[in-house]
């Protein structure tokens, strides 16, 4: 089996509100998949459907080869979930919660648990009600990462962590990635995090996937910024399709170019003669914003 998550045309309505409007999401086994979208785009709803907590109104979904609604209990032995807003039982200690969740999932590695507690600098003896948001998230992360499971579903797992701990989280996910035996679905709105960790990503907006693929694929579809120092006037450049925001200033040109127009644009620069060239690939931010503007139009 090559796909850990396979959702097609998912529809979910809450009364009159349509939360998911034909969402497609495919996560290959063994990859770290970024699930990107602004607040309210439907990320958490999608995850709740994947976990069998909510039933979808249309479309089809398979999770680890099974039906997430009717086979929830069996499937949950093979996955661990970190909710976006982790709430702990107020009178249970962090350590108790970690062990409880691990056992309920069907097994927890005690050595790994110690290791993770140290990495996250988390005191497991404190009661749930005394933890801050970040520390509650750490409790859920330790429980998930120390569990012996195939699939990790993480819903904005770093939203309460400080930058140091965010870095620890990245290292841990990268280590998982190197081992390659776990699939990770990482919902986030932190673009840098997704950029650093994910093999592929899906961008959703208003309950629909607007883009999916590798970061390289997506970059290809978007514009690259070029700055060039030329020996002559770039006459042909302005007439090329796919060149935008062209500015010519004293032999220096700046422009943005669509992925498929990159080659003709560079050729036309070479015809004139190039003294210096800086090309900058689009950042994920630009990509992200562009996706939203495009759909918003």
């Amino acid at each position, binding site marked *: 089996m090559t796909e850990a998550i396979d959702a097609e045309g998912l529809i979910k309505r809450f009364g009159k509100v349509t939360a998911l409007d034909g969402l497609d999401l495919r996560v290959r086994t063994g990859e770290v998949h970024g699930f990107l979208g602004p607040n309210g785009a439907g990320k958490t709803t999608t995850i*709740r459907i994947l*976990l*069998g*907590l*909510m*039933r979808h109104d249309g479309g089809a979904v398979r999770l680890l080869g099974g039906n997430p609604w009717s086979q*929830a*209990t*069996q499937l*949950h*032995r093979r*996955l*661990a*979930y970190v*909710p976006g*807003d*982790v*709430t*702990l*039982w*107020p*009178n*249970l*200690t962090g*350590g*108790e*919660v*970690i*062990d*409880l*969740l691990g*056992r*309920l*999932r*069907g097994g927890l590695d005690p050595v790994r648990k110690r290791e993770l507690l140290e990495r996250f600098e988390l*005191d*497991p*003896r*404190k*009661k749930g*009600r*005394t933890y801050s948001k970040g520390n509650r998230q750490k409790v*859920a992360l330790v429980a998930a990462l120390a569990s012996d499971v195939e699939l990790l*579903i993480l819903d904005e797992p770093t939203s309460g962590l400080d930058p140091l701990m965010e870095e620890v989280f990245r290292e841990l996910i990268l280590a998982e990635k190197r081992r390659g035996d776990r699939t990770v679905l990482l919902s986030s709105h932190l673009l840098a995090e997704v950029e650093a960790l994910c093999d592929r990503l899906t961008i959703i907006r208003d309950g629909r996937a607007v883009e999916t693929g590798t970061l390289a694929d997506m970059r290809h579809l978007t514009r690259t910024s070029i700055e060039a120092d030329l020996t002559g006037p770039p006459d042909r450049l302005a007439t090329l399709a796919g060149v935008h925001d062209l500015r010519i200033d004293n032999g220096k040109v700046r422009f943005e170019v669509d992925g498929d127009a990159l080659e003709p644009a560079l050729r036309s620069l070479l015809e004139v003669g190039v003294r210096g060239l800086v090309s900058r690939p689009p950042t994920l931010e630009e990509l992200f914003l562009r996706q939203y503007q495009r759909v918003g139009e």
Partner: protein
Amino acid sequence: MTGTGRLIRLVLRRDRVLLPLWVLVFGLLPVAYYASFEGLFKTEAERLQYASVSVDNAGFVALYGLLKGDSLAALTTWRAGFVPVMIGLAALLTVVRHTRADEEAGRTELVGATVVGWHAQLAAALLTTSAAALAIGLLTFAGMASRTGDLDGSLAFGAELAVSGLMFAAVGAITAQLTSSARSARSLAVVALGVSYTLRVGGDIAALGDGGPSWLSWLSPLGWVTHIFPYEATNWWPVVLSVLCTAAATVVAVELRKRRDVGDGIFATRLGPADGTMGSPLALAWRMHRSLLVGWTVGLSLLGVIFGGVGGSVVELASESRRMNDLFTRLGGGSDQLVNSYFAGIAAIVGLVASCYAVQAALRLRDEETTGHAETMLSTAVSRWAWAASHLLFSVLGPAVALLAEGVVTALVSPDGSFGAIVGAVLVQLPAIWVLTGVTVVLFGLLPRWSPAAWAGPALCLLILLVGSTLQLDQWFLDLSPFTHIPHLPGGEVAATPIVTLLAVAAVLAAAGLLGLRRRNIPD
């Protein structure tokens, strides 16, 4: 104190239904009692006889307090003797809800970051609740004064109810400072109310005999307010005492508030174990329910001590009091009948009390859902069914354990009645209690957002128990309460049909609720 006004508006906005509701119900209850007595006693002789029988009936004295005088108004104030307990409960719950509960949920921080003074939250909660208590007093005063024409007496009656609210609002304000969890703050305040009630009952029962510790009543705020005796020998001292006590308690609450940070309690939370031993939903449910189970079992056992102790004096009184002997002989029985009807009566009350436990335990499911714990649990290999069953087990068996304890204690303490009959009378209430569990499960499964409405079950049953027979309501209304269908034991006939029917109703309700739960969104 800056911003108190705005916070009061916030409190009123959030409680716009609940607050007026309890103010109206408690404020109008005295007039309703008055009207029902008016209808009940066709002649003066009837009224005098009722008063003379009630004045030394230990069961009545335990429930309502001592009776002084035999006028309609005096009987009304006596009959309303349990209302201060209910007002106290409503007041302390309201204060904790708007102080510690907000703080625990993190809303205080949100509000505290705006232009709001250090004490504004506590002040807003106390002022609103006190105003509600005063409104109850005013309603009572107005209603009773228009009925009786006795301004002084009605004023004292209104003051009795108002100060009950004031005192327990202040008690809630203190317990809200002590622990960092709203649940513990509520429990501590309710325990204070319970101790206060127990002392009052002990003292008043002792006052019926000679040389007993009747001073116990004076250790209890509820004892003070029921010793005002409006319309008869109106005693204003308890009112003064109550107001002073409220002021002192408020000062204590404010001082405690100064000595802690937002989110903390005066009692520090200790560190716990770094590793857990729990590995099943049932183990977790046990952790979450065990203090509740112990609390209810101890509470009901204490009630058992009182009721058992009173049982003894019932028989003693019956043999001493010719009037009561005559009355019961006329009703078709001797002192046996008296003892039986007493134990049947308290079994009904205890059953109703235990049904609150059943509803509370079942509603833990909804608590778990709204806090997000359910989502965490159900994302593991725990089925919805196993999760729900782990909590419902405590709603079903918890009341059974607590009732058994109450029955055994009553039977051991009481010199009369057979052990089996007393325990059986209490345990036979269980089918009715389970129906209320079933109602809660149905709401939770099919209309989850309406789950708290499950409290309407015990509330309606209480209403039917308290006023049903007095107001001579229609039978169909009385039949709404599952407790109406429970055989009156000891002494009554044991019929299998109503018990089997109640069990079937409870099972069908629970099954419908669980099927609904299996099919619905979580969280909803």
